[in-house]
């Protein structure tokens, strides 16, 4: 009997993604402890990490961080494969899709605030689309949509400002502008 050794080489990229995903997971867990008046309305602090990763390391890395965050926070919060998990996943997928398009906007005019607000709308849009199609088919969601959209706008803008301030204070904005 021969021992076969499977080697999984770990690159620096993998470590970085794991570290950033851990940060996003931590923010998701911290956020889950916050009481919310309406289920589903959350600040989405993990999106700050996703956005920073997107701007610094590109879309693939952001998708990895976002996907790992959804999976791991599902495990840790005990909601893996429960409706809440699927809503979260639908939101993450839509928001990444929006970001894939939005990151090609000219960065001269569209900064992190635009990306954050658009991603937040993508998030809530994906969640509501899945909820409307699967969990709550009917008209009840229409009445809730303005509330969710307003929350997405406010939290998206706040997160965007945080990202922009972080980029400026850490001096990353210059390196990013050199890259683009």
């Amino acid at each position, binding site marked *: 009997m021969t021992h076969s050794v499977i080697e999984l080489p770990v690159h620096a990229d993998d470590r970085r993604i794991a570290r950033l995903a851990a940060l996003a997971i931590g923010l998701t867990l911290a956020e889950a402890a916050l009481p919310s008046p309406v289920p589903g309305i959350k600040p989405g602090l993990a999106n700050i990490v996703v956005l920073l990763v997107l701007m610094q390391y590109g879309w693939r890395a952001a998708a990895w961080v976002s996907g790992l965050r959804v999976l791991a926070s599902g495990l840790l919060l005990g909601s893996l494969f429960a409706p809440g998990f699927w809503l979260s996943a639908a939101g993450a997928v839509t928001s990444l899709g929006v970001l894939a398009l939005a990151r090609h*906007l000219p960065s001269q005019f569209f900064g992190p605030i635009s990306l954050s607000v658009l991603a937040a709308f993508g998030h809530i849009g994906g969640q509501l689309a899945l909820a409307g199609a699967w969990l709550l088919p009917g008209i009840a969601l229409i*009445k809730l949509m*303005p509330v969710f959209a307003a929350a997405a706008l406010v939290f998206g803008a706040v997160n965007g*400002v945080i990202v*922009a301030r972080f980029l400026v204070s850490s001096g990353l904005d210059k390196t990013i502008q050199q890259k683009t």
Partner: protein
Amino acid sequence: MLLRAGDAGVLFAGTGLVITLAIYGWSGDQGDTAVIRAAGQIVETASLTHVQRFAINGPLGTTQIEIEPGRARVARDPSPRQLCVKQGWLTRSGQAALCLPNQVSVEIRGRTTVYDTLGY
């Protein structure tokens, strides 16, 4: 340079979207007809297009119903507590004013009929 030109545009567009959703989601269905009942039987069906007045007789006396473009109300009623009169103008589909002592009611209907209540 925290807020760039496009960011302001995105924020404006987002605000516009929220307002549009609020108007669309919360305005409800504008009614277009008023159904007037006396003792449970429909006595008049009037469209809310022009000014009309109806006098409906019930056990206590005459209930006057006023219809204007887009709205309807019970103008006078002989009931002691005047609840249906105090309801004022009705505009949305599904709204109704009941004058129970005089057994007269006005109900607004729109393109879609809404439910009074839903039990799950």
